[in-house]
């Protein structure tokens, strides 16, 4: 006989979450459709997508690192580097006009460097704890993979500045598209690894927590395949999966908002729960990587013409 265990998940919860995510995805689609076609001289479509991706990544890192480093009390001065550097990268992506091209390149190269250095700082923090490279440290010490998002933001920013000089064509587009795809694949897989670790820490208590460890690797596969042989069908599949990943990133924020609610005191206790619950700004970094990936796909498309 099956034990009649009282229902673990309230139906209302499931319904609300579903509603929220559908709403978000639909909203995102609507917004992107209604946006008037921007015919700015500096921006090819690929450049625009890559820059949007960079902006989302930088924004995600800015919010996430500010929150997490605040939680850590900024006890080490270098902890200010992450928010400052990602903040500058965000400005360079959102308002490129505010900086010279040189400055933008410097800022984004700085983000790449800060991200790489971040890995080392976090590694040092891990190694100093009892247990060193144990699961316990991987779960709760400074996250080893997180600074990678800043590196990605910087790379995407650099790529965007590169592309704004004009859309490459032919063989050059193919080369650029392949480099972009490579970055996308690395970004998707790295982000997935980070999510897998944290969702494992959360014991995948909600089945939806499997989505971001399944979908992005599929997208990465499709992107890699399309970069290898950019034919129509492969590019189409890559685009579909990248769009799905982008939407999932936004839906993820809604799920995390639901996660906040499931902590003691829920949203009424937001000052505590925004820090301890799943991070709201984290999932959109998938959207950022996916957008940059769409830019790369566009370049590959261009090369086919």
């Amino acid at each position, binding site marked *: *006989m099956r*034990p*009649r*265990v*009282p*229902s*673990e*998940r*309230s139906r209302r919860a499931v319904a609300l979450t579903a509603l929220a995510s559908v709403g978000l995805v639909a909203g995102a689609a609507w917004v992107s459709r209604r946006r008037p076609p921007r015919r700015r001289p500096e921006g090819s479509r690929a450049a625009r997508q890559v820059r949007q991706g960079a902006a989302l990544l930088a924004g995600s890192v800015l919010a996430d690192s500010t929150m997490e480093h605040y939680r850590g009390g900024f006890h080490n001065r270098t902890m200010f580097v992450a928010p400052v550097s990602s903040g500058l990268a965000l400005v360079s992506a959102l308002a490129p006009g505010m900086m010279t091209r040189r400055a933008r390149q410097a800022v984004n190269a700085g983000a790449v460097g800060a991200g790489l250095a971040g890995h080392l700082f976090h590694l040092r923090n891990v190694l100093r*704890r*009892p*247990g060193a490279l144990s*699961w*316990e440290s991987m*779960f*709760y010490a400074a996250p080893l993979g997180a600074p990678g998002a800043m590196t990605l933001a910087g790379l995407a920013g650099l790529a965007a500045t590169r592309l704004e000089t004009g859309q490459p064509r032919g063989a050059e587009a193919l080369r650029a598209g392949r480099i972009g795809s490579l970055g996308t694949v690395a970004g998707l897989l790295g982000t997935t690894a980070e999510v897998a670790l944290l969702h*494992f*820490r*959360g*014991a995948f*208590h909600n089945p939806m927590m499997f989505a971001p460890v399944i979908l992005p690797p599929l997208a990465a596969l499709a992107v890699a395949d399309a970069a290898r042989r950019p034919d129509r069908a492969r590019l189409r599949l890559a685009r579909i999966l990248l769009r799905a990943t982008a939407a999932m990133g936004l839906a993820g924020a809604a799920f995390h908002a639901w*996660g906040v609610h*499931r*902590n*003691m005191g829920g949203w009424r206790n937001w000052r*505590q729960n925004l820090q*301890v619950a799943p991070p709201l700004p984290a999932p959109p970094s998938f959207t950022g990587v996916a957008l940059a990936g769409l830019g790369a796909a566009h370049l590959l498309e261009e090369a086919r013409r």
Partner: protein
Amino acid sequence: MTRGIPDVRATEGRAPDVFSRDGWVPMRSHRDGEDVDFAIVGTGAGGGVMAAKLAEAGFSVVAFDAGPFFRPLADFASEEREQDKLYWTDERISDGRDPIELGSNNSGRAVGGSTVHFQMVALRFRPEWFLARSALGYGRDWPVDWREMWRAYDEVEDALKIAGPVRYPWGPRRGRYPYRPHEVNASGLVLARGAEALGVGWAPCPIATLSAPRGRAPPCVYRGFCKIGCSTNAKQSILNTYIPRALAAGAEVRDLAMVARIETDASGRATGLHYHRGGEWRFQQTRNVVVAGYSIETPRLLLNSAGPAHRHGLANAEGLVGRELMVHVNDAVWGTMEDEIRWYKGPPSMAVTEHWNYEDRKDFHGGYAIMSQGPLPTDFATSMVGNLGAFGMDLRRRMAGYNHMAGLKIVGEVMPDPENRVTLSDETDALGLPVPRITFGYGENDRAIGRHARGFMSEMLRAAGATDLFETTGTAHLMGGCPMGFSPQDSVVDADGRAWSCDNLWICDGSVMPTGGGVNPSLTIMANSARIGHRIRALAARGELARAA
């Protein structure tokens, strides 16, 4: 509900919804005259699991508890004295060479039993301990195969969503804990540093509090009030796991119902329970009785239930009821750290080393586990007054260092000894029931464990950088009193928890444990109860619930 007399809540077809502040869930109700399949005495680690298992197997079940039915969100205060309401503080006489302290350190009284205020440490027995006598040469064997127990551990660990390390360093491979370990607090990291310095293993302690949301229960908020009752429901006690399950499956729970005596007929079979509820004496008829009142109240109830066929108390033909009562050595070493530790943050024991449970090169039998500590202020002050005689300015000075303190404590195995026992005294309590007398004395091996552990913990603490070390002694937990065994001559119940001399009487709590092991007992009690539940179901399916005939 404040101090004073709480009111009966589980009645008239409804019981408190423990996940709400004032809600209810429907409850099946039985009349006193109705012959229910099972009447269970006690709803703690043993009784609570049994109520769920039997109800889920389709039996009609009424479970009695002397304590109130709390809703943690509304009833639990963050105040140590207020929460004394969770403990069994009725009068008990404690004597012997080493009289044990009773109450807050070993007995609860509430629906959910002692798990409502337990510290959530959820460790398994070492497999060899089930054959302590034949494999390790001390104590007694359990009449149960360790693999059967380990399957039952899997089951209860999942029911409690234990948060444990990804890989547990000691013992045979086990499946993954249902939830991941919590972040070890600073106090736990002191243990970790000490262990690493001395070259022994350590692990985040498997504990029964959520590290991720579960249904309507939020994850732990690390405020550290666990021992006085968790007010968030993050703690997975019997009250918010098995009790809701039991109710959903059709069990009735009667709170504030003190069972005084089990009635037996001329053939010696149990026929019902005399209990006190709502200011009056009542009688519940039943086909089977399960007793789960823990190591003092279970023997007390049996001894107080003499009948025509049980002259010296129920199931006491061989005079074994109440004997072989065990505690755990709970000695500790404390010290001051240079860094701020704030050990009250988080569950009290977040790191553990079972090194001396699995290492056999030592000069004593049995073993002990060491855990990091985080006592609340009143608790800690009380232990310093009791152990060190600290008082006045001295106590104040010591308490001023509270946020820099760290400590290690053991759960050390005590050998079963027939002279350590529960008997009935001539005094009576407010209901006119005989007050239990608890006689206890440590044996030489028990003392050796304490000495060894205090020495080892001092080394660990020093290695972790602590200064101004001092030691305290004490006991925790209760086990035994109605041991489970191989024959009517050596035990009160058989491997199925069934009394040798009364075939419709079962015991499934801590009192049936033949040995205490070097780990906290509740997980073992729950697993054993789940196992007995399965056995009862199997016996019923074969039509063997009545042994005679």
